[in-house]
């Protein structure tokens, strides 16, 4: 984007109003900023246009990428790009990769701390008369549980702490959710244009995937796609800042413009 300095816009508006840009009082400056902010939002979110200047095209997963430095706790789901699959933490860990490639087996072998989210079809109904080995997967009361240690017969999921609830992958692209900066690595999603299986600007063979908005998130009919390309309009930034104050500390917000 070729951008213009905000000061130039402020000066232009002042002149249009018959005011001297070099002699604006605080009220005039504040009024001009507010008017420019409203004007920017009007053009930026023009419903008839997807302005190239404010569009993003990002390859996004349905969970954060696994990181070797993050401390994971039970229940957290990550995307592990090496195996192109999603894994849920079943016992707290830092640094252990969710899976390692086993050449002899010609496949990915799960770490004892992780369980693959998209492999729940093999679950059997929990049987009170059966001893279960670590890694066993059962269904109980309509939920999936995996054993993160050997469990003797009679210890039901929900009673024995060694049974850990695991979930099916939820194919949701996160918008901005409260608390953490959900989108620290990318601008926040203002409006989605389309979600595709391949990068539309580079691969003419892409297909559009169905999706629906759910609050600030986007639920995707991902079919077999582990990651998707999202084309979206960034959130329009309001123009509200006062002159930088050297005595003041500033705090970021969840929305990234």
């Amino acid at each position, binding site marked *: 984007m070729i951008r213009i300095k*905000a000061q130039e816009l402020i000066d232009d508006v002042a002149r249009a109003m018959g005011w001297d840009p070099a002699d604006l009082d605080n009220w005039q400056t504040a009024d001009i900023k507010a008017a420019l902010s409203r004007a920017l939002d009007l053009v930026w979110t023009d419903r008839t246009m997807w302005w190239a200047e404010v569009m993003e095209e990002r390859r996004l997963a349905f969970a954060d990428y696994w990181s070797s430095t993050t401390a994971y706790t039970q229940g957290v789901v990550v995307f592990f790009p090496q195996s192109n699959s999603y894994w849920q933490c079943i016992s707290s860990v830092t640094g252990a990769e969710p899976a390692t490639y086993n050449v002899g087996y010609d496949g990915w072998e799960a770490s004892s701390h992780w369980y693959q989210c998209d492999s729940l079809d093999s679950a059997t109904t929990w049987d009170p008369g059966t001893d279960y080995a670590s890694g066993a997967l059962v269904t109980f009361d309509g939920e999936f549980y995996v054993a993160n240690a050997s469990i003797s017969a009679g210890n039901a999921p929900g009673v024995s702490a060694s049974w850990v609830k695991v979930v099916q992958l939820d194919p949701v692209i996160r918008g901005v959710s409260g608390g953490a900066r959900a989108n620290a690595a990318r601008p926040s999603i203002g409006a989605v244009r389309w979600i595709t299986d391949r990068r539309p600007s580079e691969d003419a063979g892409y297909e559009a995937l*169905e999706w629906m908005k759910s609050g600030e998130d986007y639920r995707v009919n991902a079919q077999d796609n582990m990651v998707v390309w999202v084309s979206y309009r960034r959130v329009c930034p309001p123009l509200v800042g006062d002159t*930088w104050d*050297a005595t003041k500390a*500033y705090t970021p*917000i969840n929305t990234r413009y």
Partner: protein
Amino acid sequence: MERATTSSQVFYDGDFWNAIATTTAGQSPDTHASKWEVVGIPADWRRELVTFAQAFLLEAQGQQDKSQAALAMGNAYLVELRETEAAKLGRRPQRRVRVP
């Protein structure tokens, strides 16, 4: 969705900047560039933004007739801008898709 406030955005050296990390006193966009991101405003929108902003200021002053005239001019500029954008996109290879 949270919106930028005067606690997270500053006006510095003629631009608006959003804090993307917590800063302490004295940490400006110049001295701590990694903690700030400039607000990019497309230069192509200059005429539209100035005209619409003028319309909104005139409206606030109660000058309805002048405000309406400025709004009409802004909308005319916007139509031209859309046509220019469409022409730019038309020069790129496009593929028709079913958008759900």
